[in-house]
């Protein structure tokens, strides 16, 4: 159990700046997900917390203790790697015990914890196998087990599910969430899968180019993206971003001063008239049915492309003229020069 505090954290590799001043406070027992495009510095940040990467400047506190100069072993954290990093020459049991033995934990205590972890993760029957005799999902469980037997102050996960197939990924995601709720261990979780990010996180940290774009609960981030980047990064299909001019007459919309871009979620654009809604004429270009809903690609008469997500499978053929209705409340106003929200 511990809090984690990152204060103005920087990491430079020569002239390239991987992390450029991050401030973050993680509450005790909280699960924070770091999400962002490839190369934005998520792994670097996590590895600095783990002590596997030196810090260029700034402070890292785990449980109130400054650990910037501490060895990884002294930080009381456990890490789950993307490739699992199981010791191939040891049995599953050996893998689980290794960290405890190194710390001189008494034999009885080691056995108790290993058996408990094996039970929680349902890897009991595999304890005497070598990692190469396990499936990807089982290896993932062992990697989790190695982290939980240590009973550390914090878990660090670096894209732990990205090597699994889609179905197993969903299943393991749910298990990680349950496990974390049960153990109440402070966790930092890195992913670039936004669905994983939205479902797991107590709070999301959206990163871009070594900087934090927004910190907030998944709903906050989804409902009120703080920047254009977050607006386009979170949500699938992504939010439609249009210049204000594409809306035609903006008199009744009450857009804040400085607004020159607006964002609209694909499910907030409608094909039926709504009271008070702005009507935009458009042409249908493509209809993608994806089960319960469909993605409709339209070209507005102003020349901009947008995507609508509409329930069911509307019978619209390509080339048909349609009208899109947008309620003023659904608009997210941005200033494209600063990239920030204007109604903050």
């Amino acid at each position, binding site marked *: 159990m511990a809090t984690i505090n990152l204060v103005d954290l920087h990491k430079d590799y020569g002239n390239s700046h991987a992390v450029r001043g991050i401030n973050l406070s993680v509450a005790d027992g909280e699960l924070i997900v770091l999400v962002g495009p490839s190369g934005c510095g998520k792994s670097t940040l996590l590895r600095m917390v783990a002590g596997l990467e030196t810090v260029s400047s700034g402070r890292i506190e785990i449980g109130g203790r400054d650990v910037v100069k501490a060895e990884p072993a002294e930080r009381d954290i456990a890490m789950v790697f993307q490739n699992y990093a199981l010791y191939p020459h040891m049995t599953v049991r050996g893998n689980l015990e290794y*960290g405890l033995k190194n710390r001189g934990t008494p034999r009885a205590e080691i056995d108790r914890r290993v058996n408990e972890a094996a039970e929680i993760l349902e890897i009991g029957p595999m304890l005497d196998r070598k990692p190469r005799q396990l499936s990807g999902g089982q290896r993932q469980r062992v990697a989790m087990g190695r982290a939980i037997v240590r009973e550390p102050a914090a878990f660090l996960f670096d894209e732990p599910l990205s090597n699994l197939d889609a179905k197993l990924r969903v299943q393991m995601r749910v298990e990680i969430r349950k496990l974390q709720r049960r153990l109440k261990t402070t966790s930092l979780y890195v992913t670039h899968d936004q669905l994983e990010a939205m479902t797991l996180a107590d709070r999301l940290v959206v990163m871009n180019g070594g900087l934090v774009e927004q910190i907030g609960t998944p709903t906050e981030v989804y409902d009120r993206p703080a920047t254009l980047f977050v607006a386009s990064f979170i949500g699938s299909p992504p939010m439609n971003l249009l210049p204000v001019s594409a809306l035609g007459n903006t008199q009744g919309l009450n857009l804040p001063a400085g607004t020159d871009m607006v964002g609209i979620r694909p499910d907030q654009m409608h094909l039926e008239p709504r009271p008070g809604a702005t009507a935009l004429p458009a042409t249908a270009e493509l209809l993608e049915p994806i089960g319960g809903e469909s993605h409709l690609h339209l070209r507005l008469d102003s020349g901009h492309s947008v995507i609508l997500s509409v329930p069911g499978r509307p019978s619209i053929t390509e080339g048909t003229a349609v009208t899109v209705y947008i309620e003023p409340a659904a608009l997210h106003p941005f200033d494209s020069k600063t990239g920030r929200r204007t109604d903050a």
Partner: protein
Amino acid sequence: MQTKRTIFPNKLLPYVLLLPQLAVTLIFFIWPALQAVKSSFEREDPFGFRTTFIWFENYTRLFADPNYVNSLSRTAVFAVSVTILSMCVSLLLAVAVNRVLRTNRIYTTLLVWPYAVAPVVVGILWWFIFNPTIGILPYMMRGLGVAWNPRVNGDQAMILVIIAASWKQISYNFLFFVAGLQSVPQSLTEAAAIDGAGPFKRFFTIVLPLLSPTTFFLLIVNINYAMFDTFGIIDATTSGGPNQATNTLVYKVYADGFLGLNIGSSAAQSVILMLIVIALTAIQFRFIERRVQY
């Protein structure tokens, strides 16, 4: 892995293509080996007029000869020492280089050079360095009060050939160890660091076990090298002396056959050496088949 098979339209062609290699092998390896086996069962009179077939007498005499048994044990000491010394030093160097490899290739290149030096040159090099009258090391050792003279002292002569032979083999081992270390995923040592293992513990519990295929392979190769490939080094430094102190099996084959002109005994010795090589090679092949298993 997919192997591509070529189908020759002409049945004879593949054999013709293999012929040069087969001919070389037959003329320079198989035939002399058979000759050696034949001579090992014969005795030649001092003038070379008559050879008699004497069955295993050459062999029984050999094992009754204290000189030969002595040479066997010296060879064992020599081979084990060379193997351990060259492997430990090269592993140490490989670990050091592995830490900086991405930034410094020159270092690696320099460490590989000794392998390209001819054995006799290696021998002469170390002969000079350890030469009691003109060498730099004996000069320094005299300063420390150690009397160094490998021409008189058998143990010192042995140390000299062990160092010379190890030095040459270090670069070969080094290359394999670097490659082996490079293939140990960095995330494993990182996981171990988080798991509370210090640098030495990480090395001995994670890296070394994962290097074991490489280590075993090098073990066999080095024993082979020390036992059979060190003739040039010994000839150039000590010539088997003083008083048989560095007369290893391979050197003794040469000394008895070409200097002592006892062809029968020399042939019997080389047959025994051949059997040892075959045994070592068999162990190596059996192992390589299973090398992926940790």
